[in-house]
């Protein structure tokens, strides 16, 4: 039991820090660069993303193991997963708007960005590919979400500081953000080897 728990914890740490989606798996870069300009948006995005990722992981796992595997339609996983994510996002958009308009105004704007984001669709695909069980899938989804949140918040705080920096003109904005990411990734290599799954 405890080793089971350790495995989940390790999976979580590995997904969030060591194999960070942004710095080592290069997923969600578009969102990462797109919304890390201001801390406020970064935080809103992080919350929305993490929750959607966990739920998408759960829903997709259920669909994969109880529908697609028995029906032998796993080759359709891309179509189905994206359908699930899109449907879920659409549903939560509608529900949030009705149930909690305040929260909707805070986080709803980010929902629209989610359905076409690779990081959300990557979680179910990796879960399916690695054959994780249900809890592992959840833990991986949560870890990935938190890892993405860490990356976003870090980057937002750095970019707010870079706003004040005297960066040479051709490098202002995106290029320096990439170079900063390169250096963060460099620092993150220090974690390699902590957990080998």
């Amino acid at each position, binding site marked *: 039991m405890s080793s089971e728990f350790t495995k989940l914890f390790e999976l979580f740490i590995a997904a969030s820090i060591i194999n960070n989606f942004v710095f080592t798996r290069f997923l969600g870069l578009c969102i990462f660069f797109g919304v890390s300009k201001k801390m406020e948006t970064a935080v809103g995005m992080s919350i929305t993303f993490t929750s959607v990722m966990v739920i998408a992981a759960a829903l997709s796992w259920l669909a994969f193991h109880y529908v697609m595997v028995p029906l032998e339609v796993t080759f359709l996983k891309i179509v189905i997963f*994206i359908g699930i994510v899109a449907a879920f996002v659409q549903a939560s958009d509608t529900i949030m708007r009705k149930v909690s308009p305040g929260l909707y105004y805070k986080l709803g704007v980010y929902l629209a960005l989610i359905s076409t984001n690779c990081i959300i669709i990557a979680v179910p695909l990796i879960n399916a590919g690695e054959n994780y069980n249900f809890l592992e899938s959840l833990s991986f989804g949560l870890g990935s979400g938190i890892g993405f949140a860490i990356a976003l918040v870090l980057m937002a705080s750095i970019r707010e500081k870079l706003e004040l920096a005297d960066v040479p003109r051709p490098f202002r904005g*995106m290029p320096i953000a990439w170079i900063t990411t390169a*250096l963060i990734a460099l620092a993150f290599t220090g974690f390699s080897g902590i957990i080998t799954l």
Partner: protein
Amino acid sequence: MELPEEKISYLQLIKNGIFKENTIFRLVISLCPSIAVTNSIRNGFLLGVAVLFVQTMVNTTVGLLRHFIHPRIRIPIFMLIISGWVSVVDMLMAAYAREAYKEIGLYIQIIVAFASILARAEMFASKHRVDYSFFDGLGSGLGFLIALVIISFFRELLGRGTLLGYPIVHAKPLLIMVMPTGGFLVVGLLMGFFNWIDIRFYGGKGAGGAGGH
């Protein structure tokens, strides 16, 4: 009802996709593969081809079907079309390029979420004739392919001292270039370099501010 469309040169559409609206360097979207698969030219090229194929086919399909798609459900329909074509490429690659598929398989599947593809379908193909849509898709896909090849050219040369697997430089390679850091660094430096050219020779402002998914 068909509105009389302005005549657009096919060549212009292709050039536009490669230079002015280059997905990676100018629009700064669909970035993930630019790092993930560019540690060798082969991987970069294959993913570029996959994107080129999907982009062109999606644009063509949308261009053909645009009159039959109800505007209110167009986005889900587009998504369906995209994921269909991605599945095709996914299975083709899995069958015919096994070695590479092991490394870049995930990223092939991820093409489904590329904003650039949806964006072109929405902004261009749904409003233009099918032949224009085809060439727009071709140009945009080519731009993507070229960008990936440029990035992977530098990374493979610097990081392994090889090109397409053939040894070129015999000095000790900069191992870091094939690692994540090197990928981000090369893209950042190239972006800065292209901005510099744009500012220096074309009086542009550089493409710093853009960014999307």
